[in-house]
């Protein structure tokens, strides 16, 4: 072992392994912690079903492999492929609208024969990649023309996905693109102006919403309006969270979830199960853990090699945060019900793969830096 005397300069074996695999041990720690919390909660939410856990473990395993693979791809390669992936993604979205499968009243899936595929999920990654690519050779802050075109590139997939209709994903895709604009130096004045304009456009938006979407908004404003119908989910999940108290009812002891009062308790509403069983203390722990991951992601982004890497890394970190905010906001009754999972915890394979692929990109940005800098 020749390195032993020089160990001051040699990191530990595990760190060296991490580096060799282009992984970031800080991020990996946060992700691992969340995944473990997720499995623990899922066991309770899924009525102690081992089969459910097994399936989720398989998905996590698959998603981790995807993350590992993505982490090996230098961000320059990602940048090169960005526009092509974007074009393919938009074409697939159009195909879904034309010939996609209908599930739960919305067309989201594309049946490729051997696998069913959800193109909107891929756009959560590809849209920020595209905008970051577009900005990468432009001077920043962007000119009006650049901004205008970038906004156009964001709105195409946003609208196509909203048409499916999948409001949750559409929102996340839009957010991911917007964050690139923001981090690229979108002027504050413009943002405020757009914000005011957007607020004044709300009645118009209301006009174009589906009935069920309007119902969700109405329900948020007054859950008691229809306590057994639209308001039921929100009321029951607030009961679950509130009855958890400061210390929680303890693992496997949440009556709201075990008596099946909670809707979608393994997927979108899993936070209510967690909050009922682990209480405020558990909630603080979880929020801190999420905050930790987001900050780490932003730090990696700031240290990014070039404009593309920085913009993409920052956008992915912030999108991850939007997931958290929309989901917890919905479950705790401060945002309307929008189908967004609790990242890395909700049961389900698609979002797990997307999220870990995004983390793979962050890790690649982090680890390939040193190879690139002279």
């Amino acid at each position, binding site marked *: 072992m020749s390195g032993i005397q020089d160990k001051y300069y040699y990191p530990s074996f595990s760190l060296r392994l991490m580096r060799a695999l282009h992984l970031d041990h800080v991020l990996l720690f946060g992700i691992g912690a969340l995944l473990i919390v997720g499995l623990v909660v899922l066991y309770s939410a899924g009525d102690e079903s081992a089969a459910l856990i097994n399936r989720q473990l398989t998905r996590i395993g698959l998603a981790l492999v995807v993350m590992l693979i993505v982490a090996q791809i230098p961000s320059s390669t990602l940048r090169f492929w960005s526009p092509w992936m974007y074009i393919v993604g938009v074409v697939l979205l159009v195909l879904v609208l034309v010939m996609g499968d209908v599930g739960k009243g919305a067309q989201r899936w594309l049946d490729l024969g051997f696998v069913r595929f959800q193109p909107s999920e891929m756009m959560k990654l590809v849209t920020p990649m595209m905008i970051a690519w577009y900005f990468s050779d432009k*001077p920043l802050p962007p000119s009006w023309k650049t901004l205008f075109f970038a906004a156009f590139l964001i709105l195409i997939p946003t609208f196509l996905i909203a048409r499916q209709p999948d409001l949750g994903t559409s929102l996340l895709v839009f957010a991911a693109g917007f964050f690139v604009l923001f*981090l690229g130096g979108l002027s504050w004045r413009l943002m405020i102006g757009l914000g005011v304009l957007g607020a004044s456009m709300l009645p118009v938006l209301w006009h174009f919403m589906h009935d069920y979407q309007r119902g969700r908004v109405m329900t948020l404003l007054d859950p008691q309006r229809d306590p057994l119908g639209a308001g039921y989910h929100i009321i029951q999940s607030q009961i679950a969270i*509130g*009855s958890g*108290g400061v210390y929680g009812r303890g693992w496997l002891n949440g009556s709201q979830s075990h008596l099946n009062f909670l809707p979608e308790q393994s997927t979108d509403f899993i936070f209510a199960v967690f909050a009922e069983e682990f209480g405020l203390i558990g*909630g603080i722990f979880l929020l801190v853990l999420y905050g930790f991951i987001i900050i780490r992601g932003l730090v990696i982004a700031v240290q990014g090699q*070039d404009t593309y890497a920085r*913009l993409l890394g920052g956008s992915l970190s912030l999108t991850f945060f939007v997931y958290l905010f929309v989901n917890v906001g919905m479950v705790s009754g401060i945002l309307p019900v929008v189908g967004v999972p609790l990242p890395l915890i909700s049961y389900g394979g698609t979002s797990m793969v997307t999220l870990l692929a995004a983390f793979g990109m962050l890790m690649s940005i982090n680890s390939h830096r040193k190879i690139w800098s002279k």
Partner: protein
Amino acid sequence: MPRRAVIKNHTLEALLFKRRALVAAIFSVLILLVLLARLVYLQFFEFSHFASLSENNRVRLSPLVPNRGLIYDRNGVVLAENRPSYQLELIPEQINDMQQTLSDLGEIVVLDDDVLKRFKRLLKRSRKFEGVPLRTKLSEEEVAKLAVNRHRFLGVEVKATLGRFYPLSKSMAHVVGYVGRIDENELKRVDEANYKGSTHIGKTGIERYYEDQLHGLVGYKNIFRSVQGRELRVLDKIPPVPGSNLWLTLDARLQKVAEKALQGFSGSVVVMKPHTGEILAMVSLPAFDPNLFVHGISHKDYSRLRDSPDRPLFNRSIMGQYPPGSTVKPFVGLGGLETRSIGYKEQINCTGHYLLPNEERKYRDWKKTGHGLVDLNISIEQSCDVYYYELAYRMGINRIHNFLHQFGFGEKTGVDLLGERSGLLPSREWKKKAKNKIWFPGETLITGIGQGYMLTTPLQLASATSILAMRGQVHPPHLLSQIEEAGNDEKTNIEWQEKESVKLKREVNWRHSIEGMVSVLHSIRGTARSSGYGLNFKMAGKTGTAQVFGIAQDAEYDEETIAKKLRDHALFVSFAPHIDPKIAVAVIAENGSHGSSVAAPIARKVVDEWLRTNEGRVDK
């Protein structure tokens, strides 16, 4: 115009990004604080409010299903009962090795692949402490074997649930009907609260008609559940009120006899007590096994029953509409006397056919050579058609219609069953309304012998015959005799209202018509004389033949060459004894060809059986 610098300033851009990332980080932390504030609000400040809501959620109101009332015949023979049906259940948390347990159980009870597949699917969805059904409808033998081997199987339970059972199977299928799983439309019809927890509802027959009485009232209990849903304690309880037991007017033994007598034919036998309206037997053949429907009939069985050309699901007694044929003659004859269209002793010369004035068409008698001089008595005895052509011609369709209407033809009898048909008693107005055509004189003639448009149900025939037998008294047919409410030891008799009697201007006319019917069985030329031998009292009856298809003018009816499906229906109506009658019978044997040789002997068997018993015995 000076263009903005297109050369990227990397240092400045990195700085810009750093600033923006910092803003984003601060913003994120602020939003995290908002979420945290929301959690604090819900979990700290509003904790007690939500905790009590959550407790309330743990109290569950669960329905207690009432036992369905039983159905008996007049002698207390059970027609519908609730039998325990055994179900094998496994409690997952008590079983260590599920695979081993299943293979061990497979040696004792039959477990095919479908059963195992379904069980595995259920197992995934079920809670650990709740029994998961593995096999339903265990046989007695399987239950016994499981009991012997009980020690080997921890967590394996045989659970008894009550299921409707019809011990007489086919015999009472149409009258008693059956229960089946409630469907959505039925839920809309009933009081949904009262059917919470009920899985079955009366679908046809008595089970359907008296559903409200049979079902009973649902009870409730409020239970406090553990987190896992286990019942911890019962907070309060309202016991259910079982459904009432029904005692019918039917006689299961007589029903069997009638069924056996009709065996081999499709058709119906309806037996009534003319002086009360009680229906003693109501047979419709072919029949089906009502037990098939209780636990959900298989698709194969159902389509077999539904698509069978013999229509076994169809209750011919109240839904089958047949031309009454010559069985209508005693009624038309009586109408002739009553309207003074013909005298009691007046004779008409029967030459084998009848001609309307100014018409070429021949209205033929069933006897080609004719009956010669015929009066009312002979016309009924020998079923002379020409006599009734002439009589109908004299009466005209209006008077025929109005007179027959009093006997309930063309009208539902109002029996306590659903789906009864009204038959058809044609009239000028009816034809105008239904077909928008005028009435032809020839149609009056054939109405006089019960052909043409006229249709009756077997129950209508039995009811009309009862009215004739009772010389005008109308006791509408019914099936329910007594009702036994839960918690009340006394059975309540159901009072069935007598309807307004048929009044004749001359009472003696009843006797004239009835004597004609007595001759049918007891005179040497009566059409059913072979069924009249060896009786120690007099029986009255009338044979009938209903055409299934029309025969062309001058064509011969050759039954040898005619396919069975096209043969005429054989009918017979009768009552006995002819004075102070105890029983009235209507028989229809589809494609039986002859009322005299096929239908009359069936009625005779029923009469013999009934009058042999104490209740029907005739004191000489």
